């Protein structure tokens, strides 16, 4: 099957900001005499952007993601059946804002995944146009770094679904 793939270029403003946060916060001109001394919350946000997520939490998310993937696909079949390489689940469903059709549709609506954690941050940053509250940075910060703490309390993945 041939699926049209087209990559849409979006401006930082229309991208929802998450993808350009590192640029806005970490790149561009700096004036050494006044290094953002008066911006509350910025250092925390910047530090968290540098965190490469590699933790027990990541591993558990992967394990969970594989569970879900396999559950969705097998419909009672075992892994060995999967290994036969059935392609009948290839629905070519296109994902919003992503590059591709022709991609397996498995679990695409489910945010309890490795990607889900990132998406949550992105949702938070893009927020409402008029959102202007103290807590935003804290929320973003928590969403970027804080899955660790969360995870211990509740391990079933449901918390990552969009509930707010």
């Amino acid at each position, binding site marked *: 099957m041939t699926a049209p793939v087209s990559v849409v270029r979006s401006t930082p403003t229309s991208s929802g900001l998450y993808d350009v946060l590192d640029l806005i916060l970490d790149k561009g001109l700096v004036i050494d005499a006044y290094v953002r001394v008066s911006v509350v919350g910025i250092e925390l946000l910047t530090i968290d952007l540098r965190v490469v997520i590699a933790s027990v939490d990541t591993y558990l998310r992967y394990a969970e993601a594989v569970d879900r993937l396999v559950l969705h696909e097998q419909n009672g079949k075992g*892994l060995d059946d999967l290994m036969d390489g059935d392609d009948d689940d290839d629905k070519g469903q296109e994902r919003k804002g992503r590059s591709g059709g022709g991609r397996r549709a498995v679990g695409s609506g489910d945010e309890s995944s490795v990607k889900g954690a990132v998406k949550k941050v992105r949702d938070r940053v893009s927020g409402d146009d008029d959102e202007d509250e103290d807590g935003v940075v804290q929320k973003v910060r928590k969403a970027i770094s804080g899955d660790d703490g969360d995870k211990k309390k509740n391990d079933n993945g449901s918390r990552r679904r969009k509930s707010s």
Partner: protein
Amino acid sequence: MTTYVYGITRGAPQLPGVPGVGDAPLRIVEHDAVAAVVSDAGEGPLRATAAGLKAHTRVLDELAAGLTVLPLRFGTVVPDDRAVVDAMLAPNIDHLTELLDRLDGHVQLTVKVFNDEDVILRDVVETDSRVSGLWRKVQGVPAEAAYYDRIALGQEIARAVEQRKVGVAQPLFDALVELSADAQAKEPKQELMVLDADFLVPRSQVEQFDAKVDALAKDRPELEFRYLGPMPAYSFADLVLQGG
């Protein structure tokens, strides 16, 4: 009244019709051949909010649509308009004009490439024997009981995912560098990210660059591309201004 600074241009630019951070109207502070786009920032500390980040980005996006602008990092606030001239523009005028010359006619395009989670995980489970071995081991065992095995499984998956990244980014980067005046690849910051790279591209070549990105994405349907721009050359205006 403190002054928030967005970016520096050659000469006074036409101000975009969008509000600044905190809904403050935009203004221009000129000095010699350069100008800073600013707005009032009020007294007291400025809070880093989503709305503020968005306003900052929007102003720079709009400016960069029509001319070359050196963006300042989000949250640059100086005591007053005088400090814009005395601490930013005047002492650095040579560096600023030099950088404006170098970036003139160029925009930044940013390309981020990710493994599709479902595709890569499926591949890993199907073809990596250590992963599939551990996967079998945890089948039918409650998640709590298999806690440590699940961590081990995840660890093996992480290893296998990293392994599959090797050699993927370089050809993509190389193909795009050809159309760029300058480029830099950054360390991928997310597990599934393969490439995170910024390109300085002449405005006249943006369409060609679009076509190239599209072609690369067509070649690699298992990868997800996020493509951003045009934007001010954030990554190529990495200059520290020496305040007066």
